[in-house]
């Protein structure tokens, strides 16, 4: 075929094996796919953990899993879904689509981006490797001191958690620097900040949240690691520390983290709704400012996770009111989404259904969120299944619905194949029903007094019905994702014949072939308006632009592949594993730490002196 000759990616592939190509890639699209594939596998692992949890809770006094195993399962379920599934699934879209949406050929720091991915993957594998040692983290995803201290958690379990999160934090921070810089510096001519697609805006705000909140958890984790490994007393009252300090540090990170999980979802939905309503996003600037306002307020509400600690009426009032304030910009977003579809010509395809499902479910999560902001009522709800219901409505009903919408929407651009509509609709309805069947009854279980994180419950408290419904729903959700997998496999076998612009898109990624060539844009496209592609079509007076040609890319310099990001990531992993080592690998020599440090330093040194296009195909 002519394309293989013309496409430098393919010409290049002939010289290097496929595995080497993927291990050394710095192409943001390939890294995006790597992020997506690994995150989806972690998502399935986290889902499997959830199914075991739900089976255990199906009936009272069940003994399917031991209490020890249950505690590991729910800790890993939470940690996996937050750090290894939802965040990296968002990162998949950042990686693949932010450069395309801003009309750029690459991200600002391609090798840093590759390192970020490898650190994430190794961190995720490291966390899950704990299961193989029978020592998965068992102290909750929040790791409250002193339960996470050496005194009460002596095994390797919480070491895996502390160190795993440290490693993942490095990945998030590196990605944060990269995408912040990319969005600020790499936009195509004419794309002012207020012309950026909403997904890019939400990504930018998310990176600000990452850059400001992850240092807090990093410091907290270093303190906890010091307590565990070196016997310091930051969180130990016997040595003059305070367990309460951990809670404050954790939630100063933890609440912005909630918005790190949901803002990209807001962005995805804000891209999909206009396209399938055939009309622009309603209230663009209100959407930008409400997103920024949510992020800003997100740093001032952390203690609403701590009402039950008894901070006193003044603090409770402050954090109650601050939390309620967040409902206003969130409400503005919901109303603007409804305003977007209002008066539109709705094309009810699978991505649109998922986006609409997102709005419907997120409203419910938002309303129960306002109930939590009412501090006295929260004292009854916190740490009960009501909270479990609430955050699954925002995290699953919100983030996962939106990410799935994004997957169906952008799949043709990523892989050049349309996903099957019929299977897509089956997936949607199964997921909507399964989701509500799983999580709606949990509101009731919680209000009727069922605490969270209990490995079983006695009969006679009236929890049975709700738990049976939730378990049935959970398996339905499992089936829904099986349908998705079937859809992927089925369409993968078909030809890669997706058009460049299957949905009549509004943004620049639809102006280039599906999938895009390595350099994305043969020539940078200047923009003069929001919804640049719609504007281009209007200017040309057509409803569809002609299918773009594949071009040779001659003269376009792209950064070459590099081994050093992977080497640095491995070094970082080894360095951190060193902190788990007991004698004789520990004090005073710590050879494992030193080895990891040496590899990292060597890798950074080589990376710094490697020419950007050292291994790039020559033109």
């Amino acid at each position, binding site marked *: 075929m002519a394309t293989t000759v013309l496409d430098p990616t393919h010409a290049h592939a002939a010289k290097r094996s496929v595995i080497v190509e993927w291990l050394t890639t710095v192409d943001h699209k390939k890294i995006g796919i790597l992020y997506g594939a690994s995150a989806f596998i972690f998502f399935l692992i986290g889902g499997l953990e959830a199914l075991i949890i739900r089976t255990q809770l199906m009936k009272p006094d069940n003994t399917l899993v031991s209490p020890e195993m249950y505690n590991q399962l729910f800790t890993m379920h939470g940690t996996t879904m937050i750090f290894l599934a939802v965040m990296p699934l968002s990162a998949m879209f950042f990686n693949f689509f932010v450069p395309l949406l801003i009309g750029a050929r690459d991200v600002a720091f391609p090798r840093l981006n590759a390192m970020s991915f490898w650190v994430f993957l190794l961190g995720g594998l490291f966390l899950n490797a704990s299961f193989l040692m029978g020592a998965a983290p068992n102290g909750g995803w929040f790791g*409250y001191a002193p339960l996470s201290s050496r005194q009460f958690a002596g095994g390797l379990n919480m070491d895996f958690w502390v160190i795993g999160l440290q490693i993942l934090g490095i990945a998030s921070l590196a990605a944060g620097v990269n995408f912040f810089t990319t969005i600020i510096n790499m936009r195509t001519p004419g794309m002012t900040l207020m012309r950026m697609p909403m997904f890019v805006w939400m990504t930018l705000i998310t990176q600000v949240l990452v850059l400001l909140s992850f240092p807090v958890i990093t410091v907290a984790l270093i303190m906890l690691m010091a307590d565990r490994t070196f016997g310091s007393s930051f969180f130990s009252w016997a040595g003059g520390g305070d367990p309460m300090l951990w809670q404050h540090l954790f939630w100063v990170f933890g609440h912005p983290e909630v918005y790190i999980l949901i803002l990209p979802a807001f962005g995805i939905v804000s891209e999909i709704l206009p396209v399938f309503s055939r009309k622009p996003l309603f209230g663009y600037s209100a959407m930008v400012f409400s997103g920024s306002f949510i992020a800003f307020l997100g740093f001032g509400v952390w203690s609403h996770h701590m009402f039950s600690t*008894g901070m006193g009426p003044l603090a409770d009032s402050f954090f109650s009111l601050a939390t309620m*304030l967040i409902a206003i910009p969130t409400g503005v977003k919901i109303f603007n989404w409804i305003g977007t579809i209002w008066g539109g010509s709705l094309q009810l395809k699978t991505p649109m259904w998922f986006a609409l499902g997102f709005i419907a479910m997120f409203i419910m999560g938002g309303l129960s969120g306002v109930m939590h902001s009412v501090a006295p009522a929260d004292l009854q709800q916190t740490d009960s299944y009501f909270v479990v219901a609430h955050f699954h409505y925002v995290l699953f009903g919100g983030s996962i619905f939106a990410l799935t919408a994004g997957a169906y929407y952008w799949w043709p651009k990523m892989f050049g194949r349309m996903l099957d509509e019929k299977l897509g609709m089956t997936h949607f309805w199964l997921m909507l029903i399964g989701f509500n069947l799983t999580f709606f009854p949990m509101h009731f279980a919680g*209000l009727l007094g069922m605490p969270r994180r209990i490995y079983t419950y006695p009969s006679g408290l009236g929890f049975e019905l709700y738990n049976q419904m939730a378990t049935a729903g959970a398996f339905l959700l499992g089936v829904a994702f099986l349908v998705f997998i079937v859809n992927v496999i089925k369409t993968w076998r078909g030809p890669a014949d997706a058009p460049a612009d299957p949905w009549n898109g509004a943004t620049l990624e639809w102006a280039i072939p599906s999938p895009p060539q390595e350099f994305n844009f043969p020539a940078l496209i200047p923009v003069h308006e929001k919804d640049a592609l719609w504007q281009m079509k209007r200017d040309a007076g057509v409803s569809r632009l002609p299918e773009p040609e594949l071009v040779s890319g001659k003269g376009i310099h792209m950064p070459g592949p590099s081994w050093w990001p992977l080497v640095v990531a491995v070094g970082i992993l080894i360095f951190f594993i060193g902190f788990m080592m007991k004698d004789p690998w520990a004090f005073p020599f710590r050879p494992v730490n030193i080895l990891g440090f040496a590899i990292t330093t060597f890798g950074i040194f080589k990376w710094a002196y490697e020419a950007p296009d050292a291994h790039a195909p020559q033109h």
Partner: protein
Amino acid sequence: MRLLRIARWRTLPLALMAVMLLVLVAGCTSGTHPQSTLAPKGDYAEMVDGLFMKTVYLATIVFVIVEGALLFAIFKFRGKPTDPAPEQSHGNTLVEIIWTVIPAVVLAIVAVPTVQTIFATAKVPTTSTDGQTPMKVEVIGHQWWWEFRYPELGITTANELHVPVGRTIDLRMKSFDVIHSFWIPQFAGKRDVFPNRETRLWFTAKATGAYPGACAEFCGLQHGRMDFYVMADTPEQFATWTANRMADTMLAATGLPKPAPKPDTAAANGAVPAAAAVVALPDTMDPALATQVAEGMQLFQTKGCIGCHTSSAMSPMKGMVGPNLSGIGSRSHIAAGWLPNTDENLKRWLHDPQAVKKGVGMIIPPLTDVEVNALVAYLRTKR
């Protein structure tokens, strides 16, 4: 035809959800839910419930309006690809101001009673509804059981908190180890307990009964089995219970045949505090049972039980790491509010506590069936 088919197909999930909602609401109103937050039996919980129901009503109104608008828009504005492009509206400042202000007003309606209730529940009332001063109770969370102390009465007990109806209870709470959270949904919201600071909570029971509570903060292996009961008694019942607890310390022998001291344990017996060595028994006890009880008492000392447990509510020695066993014979549950306190369950527990509740702090030497029966008979006398 096509429209009809779509309508039917799309209303199916809605119908399913409506059915589910009905089942849930029906399930909520029928049956027994003794741990429910929705049926408050005390003043604190009533205040919270009133506030919560306000938010529920408001949320329902908002839910119906917003979800209704969304569903309406989906049905009303369905289009075909061949339809002409709709009007390209970018926004409407007036509408946007309106839908910013309305939520703000709704939130203000919630905010005012929220702050009022925060302050109303923060302070322990100075007098109870029955005119007395609130009764102080110290709560101490342990992995994984609850200790209760009545400093004004000098009583210590575990896992079953007796309170008189109508008297405000002023709880001062701490933890022995990790963070726990004390939760009796029908009386009050949760309050965490810390190893290094005292937290406060209060409630006044309005109706007698047995109210289950639970630890609500994840506290390790057996967090799921760290329950307890609040027994809301009439003042008379409470007085009887208090008197029984005090009686446990009395030194007077009460008709129990004195156990024949065995030579090998005589020395150990000498070290046993007198209070633990005395059992109050009815005069009419069956002699066979009385012997068994005496043996049980002996075993309680020789098998090391008294290293961690005391059955005296009044003068608990310092450093008693196990739950106080005063009145264990008449408690409703064992193993921290979980297993019904039957002879059968008590025997299971004494044979192998680790098999019943893995990770529990209790270490016990292997016991024969005869020994276990004797211990159970002895513990049953602790009423």
